[in-house]
């Protein structure tokens, strides 16, 4: 399995969708869907995320890997079938601006892992509070690019608390990478350094399968 995962990772880094698809197809004769997703797809995406953090992979490779995996996993899962795994209600949004790349990468990684998530797109503080309440969101993933947007996360957290909700807030994006204390300062529950970390964070915050 490790060898297949390494080959799959190499195909993703080369943006070689055809080889990645063939590797999964070949492996599907010997492994279950969950094994394919967890031990090949997720393992490869996690490694690529770690490489990006260390400067050994590029953002383009991270993004394209997520897109390819999302598409391949769609092919593995039954169309409109039952949810792959038990999960909390999860929503994702970009706070305040049009920089949606981070949200797109996280969505791809979670989708490739079989999670269903609500995508709120670009929102203001008031908009996201309204949506979280309406959908009983248990875990809110917020992506930001600008420092002022990152500081506005504190208003989201305060609004959630004022409404008496138990929604956990996970943040990600450049300001949190450049200031490793910022997520605590804005009172988020966790910070993801890369999209690949998010499944494990979901598990640690909710106890659900990752």
């Amino acid at each position, binding site marked *: 399995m490790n060898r297949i995962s390494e080959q799959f990772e190499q195909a993703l880094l080369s*943006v070689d969708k055809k080889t990645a698809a063939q590797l999964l197809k070949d492996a599907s004769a010997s492994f279950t869907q969950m094994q394919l997703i967890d031990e090949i797809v997720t393992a490869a995406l996690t490694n690529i995320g770690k490489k990006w953090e260390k*400067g050994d*992979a*590029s*953002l*383009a*490779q991270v*993004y*394209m890997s997520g*897109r390819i995996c999302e598409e391949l996993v769609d092919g593995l899962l039954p169309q409109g079938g039952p949810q792959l795994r038990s999960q909390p209600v999860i929503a994702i949004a970009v706070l*305040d*601006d*049009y*920089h*949606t*790349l981070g949200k*797109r990468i996280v969505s791809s990684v979670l989708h490739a892992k079989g999670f269903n998530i609500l995508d709120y797109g670009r929102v203001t503080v008031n908009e996201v509070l309204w949506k979280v309440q309406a959908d009983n969101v248990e875990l809110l993933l917020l992506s930001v690019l*600008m*420092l*002022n*947007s990152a*500081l506005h996360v504190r208003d989201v957290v305060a609004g959630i608390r004022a409404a008496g909700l138990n929604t956990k807030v996970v943040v990600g994006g*450049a*300001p949190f990478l*450049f*200031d490793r*204390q*910022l997520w605590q300062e804005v009172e988020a529950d966790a910070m993801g350094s890369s999209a690949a970390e998010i499944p494990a964070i979901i598990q640690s915050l909710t106890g659900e399968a990752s």
Partner: protein
Amino acid sequence: MHGAKEAGLSIKDYFSKAENVAEGQMLMRDKYGNDCLYAFFYAPLEVEAWGGEVIYSSDGPPNAGAPFILDPEKISQLKAPSVKETPCLVKVLQAIKLMKSRVEDTCPIIGVVMSPFSVPVMQMGFGRYLELMMQRPDLMDKLLRINEDFCVEWANAQLEAGATAICYFDPVSSPTVVDREFYLRTGFGVAKRTLARFKGPAATHFSSGRVLPIIDNVIQSGASVVGVSCLENLYEIKSACRGRITVMGNLNGIEMRRWSPVEAEEKVRQTILDAGAGGGFIVSDNHGEIPWHVPEDTLFAVSSAVRKWGMYPLAGAAGNDR
């Protein structure tokens, strides 16, 4: 952006007139002792020139709105704006002329362009641009050629207005965003062609992105200065650049908001120790603009630390030539 505070204006009002920005830069120079004036308005200025939207906020830099290239197939129909007939660009040129009339040749004025290889992030959205790079190199090449001509015209207009040098923001060329091999096939050639047509020196800036794996190529592209990231070891970067290109950086502007004056002095002292020996080093933040939330006391501490620790010969700097 901090010029707006000095001028007592909102960020939106500040950038609405050339006079405001020129005055803001002069006030900043008087207050903090800046060694240059910076004709940077906001990142999406060029997108505004192409007809895109700029979104203002009260506590941060103006941002690009929704991308305007929604269908990549229409790239070949794109027509670049005329620099001298586009109000937002003319406003910047006026600001440069006003600054020049105030300082003449006593202080450098830095003009700004977005690289033809990086501006598509705002023109079409980051994800769509990355997919274009990987899947439609033919259309990417067309877009880059259109952008190159515009970038050269825009840079040279700023130099003609009085700018001393041009800061060429090119974060997409950083290994943080694309791998080196891809950069060598794309952003490197764009930079070489574009910088060769500038009628003045250029500083290539990666807006916090890494640069060390491509530093030799950045030098070959014709840049005189390179803006580097706090994600990399400044001493290693300076060692690779010594005598070949000036290094600019690499204070962490995001963390800077929390620095005490003592911490600010220590951070500045350390950057000078790492990169100041032998000259060829400019102390600055690592992104290209210090965030709105960084307090005045911290800016004063950074500025006075540069005066204290940055006078040659340097005390205790790394390297033989201090």
